[in-house]
C-alpha cells in the first residue's frame, strides 16, 4: 500500500495535537517551547504534502519561511528564558504570576 495524502495529513494532525496537548499540560518552559516547535513542524509536513499532491511549489517555499522564522523564534525565546534565569533561581510557567487582576 502506498501512502496517500490523507495518511500524511492524519500524521501531521496527530503531531499538531500532541504539540497542543504538550503546550497546555507541561510546566517547564523549555518543554512548552519544544511543543510549539512540534506544532510548527507538523504544519511543515502538511505544507509539503499539499505541495506534492497539488504540484505547486508554494507550499515548499512556505516551509522554508517557517523554518527560518521558527529558528528566529527559538533564539528570541531562549534569550528571554536566559534573561529570566539571571534574576530567578528556577523557572516554572506557573510561577510567573507577578501580575494579577
Amino acid at each position, binding site marked *: 500500500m502506498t501512502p496517500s495524502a490523507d495518511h500524511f495529513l492524519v500524521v501531521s494532525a496527530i503531531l499538531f495535537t500532541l504539540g497542543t496537548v504538550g503546550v497546555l499540560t507541561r510546566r517547564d518552559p523549555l518543554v512548552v517551547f519544544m511543543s510549539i516547535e512540534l506544532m510548527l513542524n507538523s504544519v511543515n509536513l502538511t505544507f509539503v504534502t499539499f505541495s506534492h499532491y497539488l504540484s505547486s511549489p508554494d507550499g515548499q517555499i512556505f516551509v522554508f519561511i517557517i523554518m527560518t522564522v521558527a529558528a528566529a523564534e527559538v533564539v528570541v525565546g531562549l534569550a528571554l528564558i536566559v534573561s529570566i534565569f539571571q534574576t530567578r533561581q528556577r523557572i516554572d510557567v506557573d510561577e*510567573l504570576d507577578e501580575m494579577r487582576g
Partner: protein
Amino acid sequence: MSVLAAATIHVRVGASDWGAVGPELILGATVLVLLLVDAFVPRRVREVSTWISLIALVAAFLDVYFLWSHGDSNALYGQITSDKFAIFFDGVIIVSAVLAVLLSESYIVSSSFDPGEYYALLLASAVGMMLMAAGNSLMILFLALELLSLSLYILAGFERSSPRSQESGFKYFLLSSFASAFLIYGMALIYGATGSTQLVAIGHCLHGSGCPANVTENPLLLVGIGLMVVGFAFKISAVPFHMWTPDVYEGAPTPITAFMSVTTKAAVFAAFVRVFNFSLNAAHSHWFPLLWGVAVATMIFGNLFALAQSNMKRMLAYSGVAHGGYILVALLANSPAGATAVVFYFLAYAFMNIGAFMLVSILESNGQVGDDISSYRGLWQRNPFLAGCTTVFLFSLAGIPPFAGFFAKYLALAAIVQAGHTELAIIAVLTSLISVYYYLRVVVVMVLQPGEVQAQETRMSGMAEMAVTASVAGTIGLGIIPTGFYNLATQSVDALRTAFGI
C-alpha cells in the same frame, strides 16, 4: 524539489516592485543604520538615534503620501500590494510610531538602555505591521506577523532589571507563538483546499473559477478558517483568547504598550479584512457564526473586566479588548461600509488610545507612580494641560461626541445595522454605556478629587508635549471634521473591491 526545478521561472523584479514597498524599505534600511550607530557611536551621543528614527518615519510618511496619489500597484508577483487600503494603514502605523518615538525619548533618558536597539526593534515591528497590511499572500502575512511579533516580544521584556517586564515579554512570547502555530496550520489547510497562497487567487477559487466544485464545503477549508479565526483572535486579544493582554500591557514599557495596543490590532485587522471580507467572502456563512460569538463575548467581557481594574494600564488593556469587539462588529457587516468603518476606526483609535497611555508614561518619566488610578488625584491642579488632554482621550474612547471615537463607533454601528444584524448593534451600544462608567471614573479622580498639598510638579519634555498636542488635535479634528478622512477610508476600501472583483 522536482516541482521547483521543473518550473521555468523568468524573474523580473524591477524598480516599480521596490517602489511599491518604499516605506517599508526606508524603515527597514533605518533599522540596519540604527544597529550600526549603536555599535560604533560612543554612548554619550546616542540621542542621535531618536532623530534618525524620526527622520526615517517622516521620510516614510512622505513616501506613503506619494504612493497614495500614485495609484495601486502590485509588487513581487502579487505577493505584496500597495493598494490604497495598505497605504492607509501604513499611514496609521507610521503616525503611531512617531507618537511612540516622541513618547519614548524621556523614557529612554530616565533609564539606561541602548536607544539604538530600542528604536531598531520599534521600527522593525512597524515594518512588520506595514507588510501585514500590504501582504497579498498567506506567506507574506505569516512572515510579517512574525516580524512584528518577534520585535515586540523583545520590546515587552526590554526592562531587564524589572521582573514584571521580563514576565510580560515571556508570556507574550509563549502565548503568541502558540497562536501563530494555529494560524499557520489554518493557512496550510486553506492552501490545501484552494491550491494557492495568493489571496486574490483564493478569492477567485472560492467564487468558482478554476477550482473543484463545492470547494466552500471542503472540510479542509472549514477547519482552516476555524484555525485562522483562533490565530487572529489571539493577536487582536478577543475573548476568550485575551488572557495575555492585561499582563503584557502592564509589564511592558509604557511607550511600547501604547504603540502595540494600537498598531498590532491595526495590522492584524487589516489582514483580517483582506482575508475574511474579501478573499474568503464566498465562505461567509462559515466564518460568520464563529466571529459573531467572539465579537459578542469580547464586547461584554472586555467591558465588565475593565470595570474592576484599579490600574490604568490594565484598565486600558481591557478597554482595548472591548474596542476590538466593536471593530469586529464592523468586520462582521461584511460590506464595504463595514470595511470603511474598520479603516476609519483605527485612525481615530491611534490618536485616542496612544493619547490615553501618554499620561502614564509622562508620570513615570517624572519618577512618579504612573499606573495607579488613585494616584491621579489633583492632577488638574498639578498640570491642567495634561489632565485636560487625558479627559479628551477618555471621552473619545467612551464614544462621547464630538470626539473621534464617537464617529468611529457610529460608522461601525451604521454598517452592522445596514447589514441586518441589529442585535450586534444593540449589544455594542449597551456595552459602551458600561464603558462610560470606567472612563469617567478616571476623569473624576483627576479633575474633582483634590491631591496632597505639597504634591510634586508634573513636567513634560518638549517631545512628550508635542505628542500630546498632536494626539489631542487628531482626536478633536477627526471628531469635528471627519468627512475628509472618511472619504480617504472609502477610497481605500474601493481599492480592495477592485482588486478582488467584489
